[in-house]
């Protein structure tokens, strides 16, 4: 790294020193599993704010990026400076170990008071920066009246026309079904099963099936802003009790640009950062333009308490219900 600080940390001194050092470093690298479109606008916004720092990012799933982060940490050859991740297990163990991340220094995190509870800041290292929030979705040609709540899909005429996601092997989706069960009762799940919903491997599949009319309604789907904007006969709405998955951001201790990393993390937590990042997602701050909700209103997925045995049991229950 070109900074004069400690191997895993930023310069000593005030935030201005950090920013100055960051500008000297000149670039910053983000690893993220967020939507590439949003990442691109984040890049634009960041570079507008800090013209002397070039932001680069690598978009990949947690499964791809987390091992890289581990490897970089292990080899000490950091490519990434900042890492944005949803995997709660990973976050918990990384936070516990304390070796992966540097303490966050930015004023947005430490001073604004926006990130002062256990949910929005973990171990002073992981800051909540975005939430993928799930919505109710329907095809307006088939179901013009739309849905008001998750339970509205339980209608005989929707038999075979409901889309749901397959949770097998995916802890987050197992957590989702647990959430549905807890919120709407077990009978809801059973009723849903009796309507023979179509099963999709991902939320995206459901969204596409809604636009084509392959299905009429989905109790849980990603927000359909893009589809609606492009004229597809779909609409969406957040359920009264929305549910979503959170992204946390941390600055890596193996960062080659530790100061720039700090600056980027701070920017992501700021209003400008949130505005850039939140189109179609829930923001951490209130009143963010383009955000579909505020994070504090959303039940955040946390499958970390599900053990392997729990998962196995849940999945086989689910399968016996939904797969004939």
């Amino acid at each position, binding site marked *: 790294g070109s900074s004069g600080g400690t191997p895993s940390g930023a310069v000593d001194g005030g935030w201005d020193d950090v920013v100055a050092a960051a500008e000297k470093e000149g670039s910053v690298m983000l690893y993220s599993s967020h939507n590439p479109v949003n990442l691109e606008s984040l890049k634009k916004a960041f570079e507008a704010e800090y013209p002397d720092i070039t932001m680069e990012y*690598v978009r990949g799933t947690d499964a791809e990026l987390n091992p890289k982060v581990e490897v970089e940490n292990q080899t000490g050859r950091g490519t990434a400076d900042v890492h944005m991740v949803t995997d709660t297990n990973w976050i918990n163990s990384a936070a516990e170990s304390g070796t992966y991340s540097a303490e966050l220094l930015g004023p947005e995190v430490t001073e604004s008071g926006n990130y002062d509870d256990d949910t929005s800041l973990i171990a002073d290292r992981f800051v909540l920066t975005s939430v993928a929030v799930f919505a109710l979705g329907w095809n307006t040609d088939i179901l013009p009246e739309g849905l008001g709540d998750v339970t509205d899909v339980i209608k005989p005429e929707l038999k075979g026309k409901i889309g749901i996601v397959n949770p097998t092997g995916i802890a987050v989706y197992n957590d989702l079904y647990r959430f549905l069960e807890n919120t709407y009762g077990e009978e809801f799940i059973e009723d849903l099963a009796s309507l023979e919903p179509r099963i999709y491997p991902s939320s995206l599949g459901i969204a596409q099936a809604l636009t084509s009319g392959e299905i009429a309604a989905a109790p849980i789907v990603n927000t359909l802003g893009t589809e609606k904007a492009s004229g597809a006969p779909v609409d969406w709405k957040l359920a009264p009790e929305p549910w979503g998955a959170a992204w946390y951001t941390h600055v890596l201790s193996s960062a080659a640009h530790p100061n720039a990393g700090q600056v980027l993390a701070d920017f992501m937590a700021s209003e400008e950062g949130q505005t850039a990042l939140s189109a179609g997602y829930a923001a951490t701050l209130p009143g963010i333009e383009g955000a579909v909700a505020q994070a504090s209103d959303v039940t955040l997925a946390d499958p970390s308490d599900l053990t392997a045995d729990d998962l196995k049991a849940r999945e086989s229950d689910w399968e016996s219900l939904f797969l004939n």
Partner: protein
Amino acid sequence: MTSLVQRPLALVIAVGWKARLGYAVLVAALIYMVVLPLYRLQSLAFGDGARGYRAQYGRADIGEVIWTTVQLALASVVIALVLGTLLAFATSRLPQRFSFLRMVPVLPIVMPAVANIVGWAFLLSPGPGYLNAAMRQLPWWDHLDSGPVDVYSATWIIILTGFGLTSFVYLFVSAGMAAISAEHLEAAQTSGSSTIGVFFRVVLPLLRPSLIYGAGVALLLGLGQFTGPLLLGANTGVKVLTTEMYRRVSESPADFAAAAAAGSPLVVLGLLVVLAQKLLLGDQTRFVTHGGKAFKSTPTRSWWAVTFVVAYGVVALLLPLVGLVLVSLMPYWSASLSLDLFSLDNFRTLFATPDIIDAVVTSIVAASVAVVFCVPIGFAIANLLVRGRRYRVLRIVADLVSALPLGIPAVIFGVGFLLTYTQPPIILYGTRTVIILVYIVLMIPFATRLQMTAMLALGETYIEASATSGANPLTTNVRIVFPLMRPAILSAVALMFILLTHEFAASLLVRSPTTQVMGTRLFDLWSNGSYPLVAAMALLMTVVTGVGVAVAMVVGGRNVLDNL
């Protein structure tokens, strides 16, 4: 014709310790590149008291998963074998004017698998699928309100996977077919065999090496099939080993150990396939039809061949392509085909996405470099396998090791590579070299097996004639064997290029941070965008890949082939 001068011959391919040393180095390098990542994966799976295995095989449905995997693989391989062989036969009988149709059977894999499946879903989705809608106009189906075809059923997973594998079988079989001398077929005709009779009694048996290697490769690919079951099989609960692995690694908590364990049956099956190939082939000299007396190829005018190839092209290529193009022109996947929805917006969006050109360039460069390395490596291994009777141990090891990468889905392999090249002795993490290295390893099975079948069919006569002319083994290889194997090498180049430009699973893990390849771009869109964008990206990839293959064909020189 065959004559006794085709006895395999150890001496020609260099004698003595130099050759042995050369092969030993090659095999050692191969082991390092292939086996080490596997070893790393397995030690992960066995680590912590074999937690990975316990996690994966502790599941109640693991037996069923394996069984489904095998069933799906076998069924789609059967389709692929039948179609691929018939296609190879048909393309060998195309009238001169239609010889360009030879490209057709390869083209379906020029489309990325995701695109193919999405294209089909668009056509055959039980409700809004266009073909289904059209079929429902027919009098005997007019009472239906969905169907008659359900693309989400197991049958269609098998059919579509079969189509995909057909191209692989075709490449193997057509390379073998090119090596059958016309007189052997004519002799059968004069003996009273009809075209069909000739096909079943002479062509098929002579193709045994190609078929066995082609089937082996297709079977391993079939066992590793992924896109079809994942995208189409969710509804019917189709679970195969690869979707299991995908789930293990794609969501939190990512469990590489379990994924590696899930891949183990594939490794074992891969080894079994190699052994089965050995057993099924026996004495390989029996399949040599080049005898040195030059043969003329008959001018054939088989119109059924044209019909068949065109029909296949329409079904396996044109239909999904039409589906894909339609989707790519729409703002969203719509059940109604209204012209005013059509626009090029998706392509604009695509090109507005940063780095798209970079990704294309990177893909082409990495794929090309890997192919350039793979051809000679594969040639050397094939040489060792076909002619290296004296190096018994080296041969067996090379045979197994060169087939291994097929037995492990690239996702898993990517992890293995990540684990390997971030540790001593060779740390390549973050370099471009590692991408190319991964690509090379992934392609070694294809490079080896394709060239090997051609080499088998070539026999020894031409090589012996070269040796007696005073040419050393190197010269012989360069001036005689290489040119004679040109069709097979071209096939291999085309295939590897296609597969590598589509590659994403391993690339995701080992790519250097700032480098995207086309496959990873497509994957991003698939997990974050919409089908129309996926379709647009897939079309872009199809075009790039198609152009690359065409260039390979042109550079390779069709007219040279016609003189054989």
